[in-house]
């Protein structure tokens, strides 16, 4: 029997607006926030599209979908409920930036969502790497302070989830007296954590059930896993690891690379049309720097990790791709599994079509994983 803790997990991504990624759309204005190459079509909040995309993920065999967050985005909690209502077993990974909700109410909001959809909710803690985007919502702390606040925030969140009696807390950022929630999730809501700086690792190691990385070359991920494991050991924690990638798959390798070049050209065109930058994607100071550094060394790493897009996006968002046939991309993902990665966050450039395509990749990885030592249990 495989230990359930190391069962492979596939995560996709939700969106609420249709995009047109056809070449004919390239000249039109507008910027979709969830892909670098598309043009938004129709309303920002398209209930039917959100449901269709969630159902496509469920049908393709995804376990979970990420609900992202920025200062301009729609509220993720509401989208999470929509996603869970539209599907039967798909779970959500709901991103949350500490600092804008009191930890008590944030904890109860997650617990309430989980009570309506038992066992289908996880929290993705993003501390925020971009000062300007933090300030749009009124947060003026420095990055280091933000991570200290995240630490304090998660401490209160856990108490609010777990304490059966009223509790007091007096931390550097949060103080409560007599806090107590009658809504306590059981089983616990998993905490995913992202962030590449030393501050991030220090805090994440203490709280994370899963630690998430952007898709760096294998050697980088190997180092990062070692760092987080070392930092987590004093807390007797052994988080699972997640890597985010943007696979570009086709029937033949040539087709896949041709598509990758088309993505790059379209992203460049969109950047030019938007004054030379692709905005609207989450930056993460250290993580973005690492992606750009990798991209500057070479466009292709390992067998087929393609990083050219990071040069256009400035490393904002997860932007690195595995390019190849279905079998080749599955093999590329399994190379990460060999390092101890058990969660794979894969999202494409055309959210709906790619989610459907990835079903075949997921099947191949699951089949291949049964022979992997990391999952032998």
């Amino acid at each position, binding site marked *: 029997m495989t230990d359930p803790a190391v069962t492979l997990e596939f995560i996709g991504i939700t969106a609420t607006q249709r995009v047109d990624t056809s070449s004919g759309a390239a000249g039109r204005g507008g910027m979709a*926030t969830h892909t670098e190459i598309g043009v938004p079509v129709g309303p*920002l*909040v398209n*209930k039917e599209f959100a449901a269709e995309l969630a159902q496509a993920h469920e049908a393709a065999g995804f376990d979970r979908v990420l609900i992202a967050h920025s*200062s*301009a*985005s*729609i*509220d993720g*909690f*509401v*989208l999470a*409920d*929509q996603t869970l*209502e539209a599907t039967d077993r798909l779970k959500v990974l709901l991103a949350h930036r500490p*600092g*804008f*909700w*009191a*930890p*008590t*109410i944030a904890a*109860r*909001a997650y*617990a*309430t*969502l989980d*009570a*309506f959809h038992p066992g289908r909710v996880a929290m993705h803690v993003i501390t925020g790497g971009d000062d*300007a985007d933090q*300030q*749009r*919502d*009124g*947060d*003026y702390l420095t990055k280091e302070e933000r991570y200290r606040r995240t630490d304090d925030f998660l401490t209160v969140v856990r108490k609010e989830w777990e304490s059966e009696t*009223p509790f007091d807390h007096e931390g550097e950022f*949060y*103080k*409560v*007296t*007599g*806090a*107590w*929630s*009658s*809504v306590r999730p059981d089983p616990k809501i998993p905490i995913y954590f992202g962030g590449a700086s030393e501050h991030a690792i220090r805090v994440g190691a203490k709280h994370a059930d899963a630690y998430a990385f952007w898709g760096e070359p294998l050697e980088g991920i190997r180092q990062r896993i070692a760092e987080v494991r070392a930092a987590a050991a004093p807390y007797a924690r052994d988080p699972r690891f997640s890597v985010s990638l943007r696979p570009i798959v086709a029937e033949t390798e040539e087709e896949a690379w041709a598509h990758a070049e088309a993505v790059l050209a379209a992203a460049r065109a969109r950047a030019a049309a938007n004054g030379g930058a692709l905005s609207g994607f989450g930056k993460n100071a250290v993580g973005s720097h690492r992606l750009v550094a990798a991209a500057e060394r070479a466009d292709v790493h390992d067998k087929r990790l393609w990083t050219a897009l990071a040069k256009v996006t400035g490393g904002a968002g997860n932007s690195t791709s595995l390019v190849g046939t279905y079998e080749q991309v599955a093999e590329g993902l399994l190379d990460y599994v060999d390092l101890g990665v058990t969660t794979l966050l894969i999202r494409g450039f055309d959210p709906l079509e790619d989610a459907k395509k990835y079903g075949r990749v997921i099947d191949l990885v699951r089949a291949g994983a049964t022979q992997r030592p990391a999952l032998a249990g």
Partner: protein
Amino acid sequence: MTYSANYEAIELLGMIGTADASEVRPHQGPLIDPDYTARFAKAHEEGGFDRVLIGYGSGWSEGTQVAAYVAQHTERLGLLVAHRPGVVHPTLASRTFSTLDQFSRGRVAVHIITGATDAEQRREGDYLTHDERYARTDEYLQILREAWDEPGPRDFDGAYYRFEGFAPQVFPYQDRHLDLFFGGSSPAAYAVGSKHADTYMLWGEPLQETGEQIASVAAKAREAGRTDRPRISVSFRPILGRTDEEAWERAHGILDTINGEAGAAFRAKVARLHPQGQAPENAGSQRLLAAAEKGDLHDRCLWTPTTRAVGGGGNSTALVGSPETVAAAILDYVEIGVNTVLIRGYEPLQDAVDYGANLLPLVRQEVAHRAATRPSLEAV
């Protein structure tokens, strides 16, 4: 200055919770029962209620999540989500309610409650004083209103909030006006609420005291430069019977239950909010208790011993009688200028069904009748 009745757009509100519980129904089982929540909301929709209030408490389920769930299980029912400024940053809160309004296709309103007691606020980390809380609410509501009504980017630099370049992409459904309801009966509350509220919510006091509160709200609205006054909502706990006698028999039974063992759990909960032996800090509860001190029965059928029994905790005054009597009592409030009535029962689900079948049609019929037979347009 008096306010004559406005028969147009009379709104009837109910209230839902996520589990079967009230002063007379000790709660058992999980705090969030999804099936019960959906049934409770549907009972209101089928009964013809315009909206339901979803309450706020530091130890309760989180209201926007309850609203999101209920929106998925109803078609047209309005959702009035209670919200406390100070626990969520207003720019995020504005997006939360806009998103909820988008997915529910224009069914959301927000009920602003600034906080009842210091102890309850501190459970969520808020250590401001009462009047500071209202000053913060003033800023908060300005930020919400602008975030909903006007595209950004914008900066804000206030005493409580500061941000730069806020430019949300999401706005209320079809750019409609998202309504703010507001509660609070202290001088600080009147000043802030009268400025921002679309509907000002009061608990069910006798007609005279309600008239005084309406006048206070109207005066403050004028001071704030408004040409209209907020709509006024009053909340009651109707106890219906087929006849007045039956209703009174039921009312005394409910009072006995509250005072007995079954009510002990609820009284303990109220004691957590209002520490044992102390008078309530909030002006609204103080006003209800003051009315209750004057007598048990007021006006046509407003009954206040239930308020005394729970120490003034919240909406707790009853209208007791047959549907005809209670409908007439509700119309008495409409006559002094009340626009919205919130009713919820002691047997929450059963009473919602009962109100929908027997009380709401009478109220609507009588409102329509009076509107049609009104002699002429009176000066307002």
